[in-house]
């Protein structure tokens, strides 16, 4: 275990080591919980945390072990055993655990890989259980499966650490009290439960993607985790449905364009000004592949339509070549499934591209009285854009000012302030 170890592993390891601890943490928690049950979730999490701490203390000196996963598993298992041993009342639990887990450790590699994936799915279904409120589902998923710390979750959602901690404690308590089985639901139970999981993953992705607030790096990490977990879901027989494929497609097709959304100074760039060469082509292809998988049946979900819209943007070589009539059609369908003013607003943008700014404004007038929409900065920014196109600089200025008061994100504030200044100059110049 000397220098050779570093030389032979380092390059290969560097590629996945960035999130190794966080990802292994989820796998270890998922696998150990299988043997101990959900009522020991806390003990399992502590044991896993300790194993990762040991790795952090030892690996720097000796290099990464030949089989890091097996190393961590061994140490985490021993930590769990130590913790059970400390409680005299858990003697039966302990001997049962030691017996069962020994067989597991000796499973052949492919079977073990499947079992780990299966355990992760059980954990995902647990964290997204409908007895938990949505914000607790998201927090628990991030903490338990994605290995986020409480401060990281707090920073991602701009909430107090104490609030996150309370949510987690309550969620675990609820899981214990309800005596939830640790399993992937089957039969008629599966479909509604799968829907909840998809909703949580969608929420997770959107939180990262919409970048309304909070630490940018952490938010990008939310997107990556949502994609990773949806990828796991789609590979498991229980999660392999057209909706999951559509959900994964929509995430990939949005994430592929994230890099181009801001310029080097961190300023937001509208779609028309983005450098499309910066879009991640491999990710787009992957997204299109999943979209294709999603359309093997007649089923149509919101995820399908949103993925379809994202795909239209992704395949356009430049802004002017965007298939706006196609996008408008998808928005029409989407609005039928979910008559939300936010979707109607986005539809108005597409309509303006197809039928002109006046038509877009008319569509916006129909939703402007809704309470959700008129406190939404994007509503005013969108309307301002249309006024601008029609040469109504006064109305545009007014709307940009309104939008500015409604967002707290610096990059968005900059963007809007720039637009407002340009608009005011036009107004002054006549």
């Amino acid at each position, binding site marked *: 275990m000397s220098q050779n170890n570093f030389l032979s592993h*380092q390059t290969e390891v560097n590629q996945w080591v960035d999130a190794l*601890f966080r990802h292994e943490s989820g796998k270890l928690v998922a696998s150990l919980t299988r043997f101990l049950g959900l009522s020991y979730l806390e003990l399992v999490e502590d044991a896993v945390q300790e194993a*990762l701490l040991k790795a*952090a*203390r030892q690996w*720097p*000196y000796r290099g990464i072990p030949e089989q890091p996963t097996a190393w961590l598993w061994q140490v985490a298992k021993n930590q769990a055993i130590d913790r059970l041993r400390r409680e005299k009342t858990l003697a039966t639990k302990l001997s049962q655990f030691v017996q069962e887990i020994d067989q597991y450790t000796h499973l052949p590699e492919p079977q073990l890989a499947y079992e780990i994936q299966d355990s992760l799915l059980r954990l995902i279904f647990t964290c997204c259980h409908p007895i938990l409120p949505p914000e607790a589902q998201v927090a628990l998923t991030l903490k338990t499966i994605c290995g*986020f*710390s409480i401060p990281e979750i707090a920073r991602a959602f701009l909430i107090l650490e104490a609030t996150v901690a309370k949510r987690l404690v309550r969620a675990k308590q609820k899981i214990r009290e309800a005596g939830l089985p640790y399993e992937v639901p089957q039969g008629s139970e599966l479909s509604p439960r799968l829907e909840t999981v998809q909703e949580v993953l969608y929420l997770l992705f959107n939180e990262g993607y919409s970048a309304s607030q909070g630490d940018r790096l952490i938010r990008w990490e939310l997107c990556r985790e949502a994609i990773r977990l949806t990828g796991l879901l789609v590979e498991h027989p229980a999660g392999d449905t057209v909706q999951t494929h559509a959900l994964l497609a929509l995430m990939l097709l949005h994430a592929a364009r994230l890099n181009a959304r801001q310029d080097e100074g961190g300023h937001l760039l509208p779609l028309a000004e983005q450098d499309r060469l910066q879009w991640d082509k491999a990710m787009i292809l992957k997204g299109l592949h999943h979209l294709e998988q999603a359309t093997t049946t007649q089923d149509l979900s919101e995820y399908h339509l949103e993925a379809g819209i994202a795909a239209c943007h992704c395949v356009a070589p430049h802004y002017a070549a965007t298939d706006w009539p196609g996008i408008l059609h998808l928005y029409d369908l989407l609005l039928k499934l979910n008559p939300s003013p936010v979707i109607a607003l986005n539809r108005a943008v597409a309509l303006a591209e197809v039928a002109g700014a006046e038509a877009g404004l008319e569509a916006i007038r129909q939703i402007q009285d809704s309470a959700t929409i008129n406190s939404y900065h994007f509503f005013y920014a969108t309307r301002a854009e249309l006024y601008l196109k029609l040469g109504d600089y006064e109305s545009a200025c007014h709307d940009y000012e309104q939008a500015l008061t409604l967002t707290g994100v610096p990059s968005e504030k900059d963007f809007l302030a720039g637009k407002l200044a340009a608009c005011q100059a036009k107004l002054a110049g006549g």
Partner: protein
Amino acid sequence: MALMPEFVFLIRGGEENPQDFSLQELQVHVNKYFAWIEELTQAGHFKSGQPLAAQGKVVSRPAKDKVSIKDGPFAESKEAIQGFFLIQANDLNQAVELAQGCPVLDLGGGVEVRPIAVEIAQGLKEKME
């Protein structure tokens, strides 16, 4: 060929509250170590390293016919040695320079750089040959 002098880097402290670290921060810290070792390895300085466990005993003889064996909670002490590296360098100056890249410094820890007594080592080697 003259033997290149060897040094022991004793890594002290710097891990006061590792449990306060998020996994991401731990990861970043470990990656910094790997990058440092990789650099030392590429340049032919790195020989080996070992971490030390937190538990252990201290054996001493306070009185003539009495042996004392005490538990050492080593990890808790701010000055505790976390581990060591065996490093090759041209001289003490270079070794000290190399030690300045050690990530433990970012966490408020320190590196004790100690030359291995070369005269003895070389003497032994000649004898063996």
